[in-house]
């Protein structure tokens, strides 16, 4: 999935819940959705807002991993 406008991420930045689905549908390019996601949602049709929110959530978690590594590194260097 490609997010065309980073500001969309800010607009759905509530953790993936309570999304503005109209905005998400307009700004999200679904042509590159992972195939497995097509069966995650009812009848194989992705809920675009939910997918966009989950994508944001996944990216936020991956960023959190970097933060965790950095915090552990600071500790290691401080020993």
């Amino acid at each position, binding site marked *: *999935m490609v997010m065309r406008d980073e500001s969309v991420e800010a607009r759905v930045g*509530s*953790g993936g*819940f*309570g999304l503005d689905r109209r905005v998400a549908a307009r700004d999200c390019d679904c042509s590159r959705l*992972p*195939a*497995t*996601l097509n*069966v*995650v*949602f*009812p009848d*194989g049709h992705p*809920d675009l807002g*939910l*997918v966009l929110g*989950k*994508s944001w*959530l*996944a990216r*936020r*978690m*991956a*960023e*959190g*991993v*970097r*933060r*965790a*590594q*950095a*915090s*552990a*590194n*600071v*500790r*290691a260097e401080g020993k």
Partner: protein
Amino acid sequence: MNDAVVVAGDRGGNVCSLTALEQGRLVRAREISCWELLQAHLQHIDEIESSLHTFVAVFAEEAGLRARRLDRESRRDGFRGPLHGVPYALKDLIGRREHSQSTKAAPAADVTRKLNRAGLVLLGKTATYELGMGPPAESDPVPPAQNPWSLQHIPGGSSSGSASAVAAHLCPVALGTDTGGSVRHPAAYCGVVGFKPSFGRISLEGVAVLSPSLDHVGILARSVDDVALTYECTTSSRLRSRVAPLSSAPNPGSRPLEGVSVGVPWDFIGRGSPADDTLATFRQALRILADLGAAISDTQLPIERHEDVLSVILLSEAAARHAEAYAVNPEWYGLSFRARLAPGFLFSAVDYLQAQIARRMIRSLVDELVRRHDVLVLPTMPTSAPSWAKFREMGWDLTPPPFTSIFSLTGHPALSVPVALSTEGLPLALQLVARRGGDDAVLAVGRAFEAAAGFRGFRGWPEAQAGGWTAAPAGTG
């Protein structure tokens, strides 16, 4: 509620409120038969199960046959052990042979076979969220378990049925699974003891695994001794307590923790934003440990965002595990479960491997702390159980609990022991953590603490409870 279940040999007491060890003693003294003990629990389940939704299945007939068999066997060959004839329950992710609702299909688990061999009687399967990934949702095949302390407050999860059943005296011991805190979390909210052993100590064979590198089988009971005895049955090895043998009680006024070093990671605790009454109770617990002779000292665990590390690993592994079945039979899965799992399909291999690197770094830091201290202590949860209403306001938050998830990530043994009640009258708990493989140490310290803290478990049914769980709107979570 009529909380008193009187059976022949019970001498007028409530046998269901006894610990597993005490129940086993009655059986071995032939003051109660296995069958009578089982019937007492079945009667109690009949009385209150409809309010608590703890069980998804109760095997009354099968358990009755087994209890009769164990009674005959004890007359002929003696008793199998201290828990001969004691009823127990399994979280509905742990196999016992037949089809089950949450797991789709469940062969007998290794741990089930071991408990059966030790003479325990399987009473039933307890409620959980779909495949153990909470919170509860409208599409779940069974309603969520309730917290016996208050139907207005959540029981925690995902081993919520096991914790609720043990707290409400529907069984003295139950098994759960713990991926980010799913044994200790409901144990803390329901005021029972919850134990997550070192990673790999209890086999996952026959368990519906969500995340193979994070899942642990854990034990819930109303005393540390019960947890320890059950744990021995599952591992086939005797625990070697460094503080006191499990068969003896600490003497009043004694200092059984003399020489035991206890570390308190205040920086880490602060980042979890504990409530005021949680902190007050935690300080009370530290005073108890000090009175028992433990040397308390501050230590540091400056880890940030470990919850994300756990989430990336958990969701990636769960997505990998279920991807094929999704593609072939998506209707097997509830809509909320699919939505919860969706981020797992969006992580890259790099994300997953980076998370594993972060995990090793965090584990090394915790290893270093438990080399310097015999145990680490921290609150099990930042607050007591939130209300169902507040839980919904929070947006069915899926972030793993901070104080439990870090030790699921690192694989260290962790024990949750209830301490006292919050200002709302709900349980608050202490978590003890030891080096990997130091399961006996954490149980021994927990046992001494439990005896001194003197927490009184759930005793009665709150009156006129209403307004508990109602289904969440579809698509949340």
